[in-house]
């Protein structure tokens, strides 16, 4: 797995080439922005060989007037039959003024493949917040729990311990 934590104004370009048959790779990016941060992510997965498998997951939070633009390209070329890839991009906007732009592109030239993407932008679930606060947690503590949970779900269970400290750092930047 290629794991990247992006904190504050940054431009990052990550390309994962799938040039050898059977290659499998997962790309996970978590991000946080605040103030007037501007984050630009240009991610691409280029499948050139058959039976390659990829997955791109992007999750992050923005507060104040921070903004992010995420370009995620999944390209499956003619020779990359039997390949698959999936992009999932989600952004949490913690304040009015925050802005997220997500551009999940697909360029598919082979037919026996599985390629899809999903994207969502929204805010913290008000009901979940209310529930935690009704249990005595402060607003900050409640937000912290929900944001941490949102971020570490970017990976499956076995990986969560490995990325825990990075998640904490990203969360602290956003809420600290």
């Amino acid at each position, binding site marked *: 797995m290629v794991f990247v934590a992006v904190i504050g104004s940054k431009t990052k370009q990550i390309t994962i080439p799938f040039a050898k048959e059977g290659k499998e790779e997962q790309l996970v990016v978590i991000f946080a922005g605040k103030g007037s941060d501007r984050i630009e992510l240009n991610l691409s997965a280029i499948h050139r060989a058959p039976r390659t498998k990829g997955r791109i997951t992007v999750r992050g939070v923005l507060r104040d007037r921070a903004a992010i633009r995420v370009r995620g390209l999944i390209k499956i070329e*003619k020779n990359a*039959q039997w390949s698959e890839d999936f992009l999932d991009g989600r*952004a*949490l*906007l*913690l*304040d*009015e*003024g*925050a*802005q*997220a*732009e*997500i*551009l*999940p*592109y*697909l*360029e*598919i*030239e*082979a*037919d*026996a*493949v*599985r*390629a*899809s*993407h*999903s*994207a*969502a*932008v*929204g*805010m913290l679930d008000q009901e979940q917040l209310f529930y935690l606060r009704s249990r005595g947690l402060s607003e900050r503590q409640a937000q912290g729990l929900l944001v941490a949970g949102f971020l570490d779900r970017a990976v499956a269970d076995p990986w969560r311990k490995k990325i825990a400290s990075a998640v904490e750092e990203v969360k602290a930047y956003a809420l600290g």
Partner: protein
Amino acid sequence: MKKSFGGLARNYQFGFSDPEKYVFKSEKGLSPKVVEKISALKGEPSWMREFRLRALTVFEEKPRPTWGADLSGINFADIYYYLRPTDRLVGSWDAVPSTIRRTYERLGIPRAERAFLAGVKAQYESEVVYGSLKEALARQGVIFLGMDEALARYPDLVREYFGTVVPPQDNKFAALNSAVWSGGSFVYVPAGVRVALPLQAYFRINARKMGQFERTLIIAEEGSFVHYVEGCTAPVYSVDSLHAAVVEIIVKRGARVRYTTIQNWSRNVYNLVTKRAWVGAEAVMEWVDGNLGSKVTMKYPSVYLMGKGARGEVLSLAYADSGQWLDAGAKAIHAAPYTSSLIISKSVSRGGGRTSYRGLLEIQPGAEGSRSHVRCDALLLDPRSRSDTYPTMRVSERRSSVEHEATVTRVGEEQLFYLRSRGIPENEAISLVVNGFVEPIVKNLPLEYAIELNRLIELEMEGSVG
């Protein structure tokens, strides 16, 4: 001065020169002189002539778009920008491509219709049907005319709205259309009026309607409803290789408009269309957009949700075969609170054809409580074909709900196997799957279009095996 033009008598108070003084001579290429000639031949008011000339300047200044389908094949100097209807007739039935003639046969298109569709005849004899429809509409106060006629009879009404939803500065091809537009429809529905029968451009019995630079303007006053239908599933042979149409729709408070298009232009056509609706509070706009033909199509029906509670839906279908590139999609701009949009795109590529979904979903600051759902699915029927998805989601209002999903698939082995084990031959099985794939869009088409479309898909699939 009193003049007769297209069967109407009018008073011109604008001091315009007598169009009969112009000797009509078709020429290629575009210039202020050509634009002035078009305006003069139509006997237009001076404000429209000025509008056209300003748009021509915008067209010349704007570069060609660097994104989207390949437009390098368009040679602007090599095009006739205005021809009389009789000039664009194909000489005879024999000149119509055999593939088109055969499709008419298989689809069971009536003989009289075939000649019209193929451009062999200028008129289609459905005068009787058209006549009674006009009476019913007139009683309701509904105006449904060709755009040229509407400009002549209701110049103030046209002037109030023309170019307000799609200004010439919007893009190069909107500017071109604004300079040389001809034909198209004008629809005005008074407040509270529901037009029960779909209005079909097809019935306006005018070859010019299927022209290169149609301009359509629809105004739905508060609480009204109208369904407008254009095009047909049967292939339409066009001698013109560049089509740049503009459709502007204004849906006022509480009104609803549905605009259905099925386009199946011949494979020599560049079809570049700007379609946009301004949607007021509590109003609803529905675009149902079917793209089957043309060499290149670039078309993104848009809904600008400007009033609280406005709703927009775009159902888009694209089917690209060998040599075609259909770049279609939708735009939804949420500029007011509690607005909602739904975009469903289904594209099918076959034989090396290429379909692209291109879309924009924008939630502006202050559009709280807005919801949007976008779903684009693509079906590839063989390894030679290509499908792309280029959506943009721009969210600046966190109190909103935006969901987007896209998938690319092919006809599954298990699906095919199951159908064949039930005794269905392979190409019929494939057409069953394709028809099922596009069903969410097709079920929203008027019945006769839906039937024709299904039949057309079956026809296409016959060639897809072996």
